[in-house]
């Protein structure tokens, strides 16, 4: 009797989350219909004219489609790699520090940018990289002509990726630091008694100890491949860098919201969702296989 009363509370606690999910994630799914319609807001989803795959056909005739798919994947993959390697190395370096206070200080300082929004950071970045900004000031010392960074399509993706890694690496380090504390200290003592140097201890104790975390995180990030970061790019880009910086999300925003082409924008968004869904399924399968990670 007692245990059954207990489960009731669990269901009640589920209720707010479940209603939220229904209202904001399941009900809006009907909006997908817009991708197959000549959508008319006055008539709504139920009465707009159906046009089949017309929107998708037009989408594939656009030169933009290829560009934005490539940009999205390129930027996202670079971000995933950067956001994996940099925090990992940084965590390993921090772990070697002996002075606890110093360690805490560094940790606090590097994860501060994580709490600033891209609206603020973009302003700062635009200033730093501007024509008369400090970066060009430094370049001028070496007799390099000023570069207009945010007008250069060839540089733009790298600025995006490196600024994102800079913003997030401190925060991402926390996960690895947590994994590091999980390693049994007696392993280090044993290794030290066996005469292992610091490098050897790092390679043979530390790395194997956090390997499952690394694999798990990299596999799970697969599901994020098409999320190249709307906020950041939207706040930093301009028409000159569309060719290398425009991603699916920013394109959908412009097409749907600024140009009122709802059907086309929805079609592109839907395609993104389908690919993302596939990737998430694959990564979940891989996570189970290699890191024995399961939700259910």
């Amino acid at each position, binding site marked *: 009797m007692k245990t059954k009363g207990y489960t*009731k509370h669990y269901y009640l606690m589920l209720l707010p989350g479940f209603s939220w999910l229904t209202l904001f994630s399941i009900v809006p799914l009907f909006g997908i219909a817009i991708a197959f319609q000549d959508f008319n807001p006055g*008539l709504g989803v139920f009465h707009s004219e159906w046009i089949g795959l017309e929107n998708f056909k037009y989408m594939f005739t656009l030169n*933009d489609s290829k560009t934005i798919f490539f940009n999205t994947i390129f930027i996202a993959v670079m971000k995933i790699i950067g956001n994996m390697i940099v925090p990992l190395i940084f965590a390993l370096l921090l772990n070697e520090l002996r002075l606890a206070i110093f360690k805490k200080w560094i940790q606090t300082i590097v994860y501060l940018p994580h709490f600033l929004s891209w609206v603020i950071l973009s302003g700062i970045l635009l200033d730093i990289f501007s024509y008369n900004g400090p970066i060009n000031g430094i370049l001028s010392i070496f007799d390099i002509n000023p570069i207009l960074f945010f007008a250069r399509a060839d540089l733009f993706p790298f600025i995006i990726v490196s600024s994102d890694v800079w913003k997030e690496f401190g925060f991402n380090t926390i996960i690895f630091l947590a994994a590091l504390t999980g390693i049994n200290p007696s392993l280090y003592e044993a290794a030290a008694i066996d005469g292992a140097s610091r490098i050897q201890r790092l390679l043979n104790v530390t790395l194997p100890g956090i390997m499952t975390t690394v694999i798990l995180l990299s596999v799970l990030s697969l599901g994020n491949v098409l999320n190249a970061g709307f906020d950041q790019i939207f706040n930093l880009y*301009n028409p000159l860098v569309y060719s290398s910086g425009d991603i699916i999300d920013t394109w959908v925003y412009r097409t749907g919201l600024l140009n009122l082409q709802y059907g086309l924008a929805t079609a592109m968004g839907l395609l993104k969702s389908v690919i993302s869904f596939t990737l998430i399924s694959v990564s979940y399968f891989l996570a189970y296989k290699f890191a024995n990670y399961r939700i259910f």
Partner: protein
Amino acid sequence: MSKSRKCIQILLAGILIVLSACSNSSSSKELPKSSTEEAQTAAVEKEANPFGKSEEPITINIGKEIDASDKSLPAGDSPESNQYTRYVKEQLNIDTKIVWQAAAGKDYEQKINLSIASNDLPDAMVVKETQFRQMVKSGQLEDLTEVYNKYASPTIKGIIETTNGLALKSVTVDGKMYALPNVTPEADMVHYMWIRKDWLDKLGLQPPKTMDELEKVAKAFVEQDPDGNGKADTVAITGPQLGGNLNADFLNPNNNNYGFDPIFASYHSYPGFWLKDSNGNTTYGSIQPETKQALSKLRDFYSKGLIDKEMSIRKNAQELIKNGTSGIYFGVWWSGGYGPLADAYQNNPEANWQAYAAPLDMDGDFTPHMGNPSNQYLVVRKGYEHPEAVIKMQNLLYRDESKFDVNVAISNYPLRLVYASMDVMDVTYKMLQEVLAGTKKPEDLDLPGYNLLKADAENIKKVKLEPYNNNDIQYWDPNADIGVWKRMYSTLVGIAPLQEPFKRTYSVTYSQTKTMESRWAALDKLEKETFLKIIMGAAPLDSFDQFVIDWKNQGGDKIIAEIGETAQP
């Protein structure tokens, strides 16, 4: 077992409550509407006075654009409650409620687009052409034909008629009038050169007339340290800001400040405009060889550092003018006093910005493109009970505009549309000259159709110092009344260049065709991106040729044909 089933039932019941609560709220909205509607139709039949005060208080929910830099509201006032809204309440018994507000420009447009897409419209708002078409197509708008005929004041009707039917034509679909169009003065359409005359004087130069002279002056502005601070930190020509346009186009033909329209025009290039070629066929300005020529020149200017290096990346083009870094920009008459020049003056009282009809074409003519008299559309949501309210508000504004304190920005008037006779600025300019010369008195200038003229005449001597025929900045007293100065400086300095005859070029159409609704966004993006890249050196000049081919193939040819058909009488 049964217990757990009960739990699921509770869960489902919970969901049902949430869902029904949602549907309830929407259905309860419907009910009272029809009853008030009936009451209102009865009232309409009773009286139709353009300035009549409503017996019952009317509430109108509006979406409003806000100028973030506007600091003119007195303490305690807000966009929702200020001298204008209180006056509307007092005179017409109309309460204006702002349901949402957004920064003027892209933010405001986006907010409107969201309202349209979600079919969640305020009772009334001011939209632009493409949005208007979309709303008509979606059946979201109230038919205003009847209330316009009944309630629009004779003056407003008169002004709308001065456009020879253009204004009404632009809002009439299938014989019904779906919006109230504005009418802008012709002066809002003409872009020309604003230049720092104190810099010219300092370097011993004359105001440039041709492109060659412009280049010489710009070069001197960059190289000869006109601000005298010993640093090479000056920019000659200000360019468009992030999201700004290089040139005006048929959808946004007016008020394209900081673009390069006069430079294009001096090559007889009219990008973004639909033109008639020598054979009488319709063609598109952006794909003409003249446009390539103008782009080539702009590219040359940019590479020589004569144009702001950070144009189209900078968030606010005005800052260069305000802080005295730049010496030349292109804009319309009001982009002076109403624009950055009050701040420029506060920062440096010697900044002597003057306006000239330049650059000229090869034959020495000034050949600007012209716009459309109507570029704002006041729309009313379908089913709103008091469509006449918006019309009365325009009647009132036009009749009593001169009574308001000019120091409070007029953009705070709810749902304001610009109404002006096409020639209003020219007339104002000429009359003010007469007032200054002493040949006319303010009392003589209470002319119908020119609602601000008398007040302007009364105010001019507050801020203009002698000699009256010299408009240099030292003969003004902006501090006497900065609000008055903004208007007077814009008028006297800004309208002077338009006093000489010039050659006007109009677009064949100022509205979208059927194919454009789906294809135009992609074509427009292709064009703007290509042009910007060519000017800023990110793409070779010859990518223009590829652009012309792509543009035609991706639907441009079809659109030209469509416009050609509709343009035939």
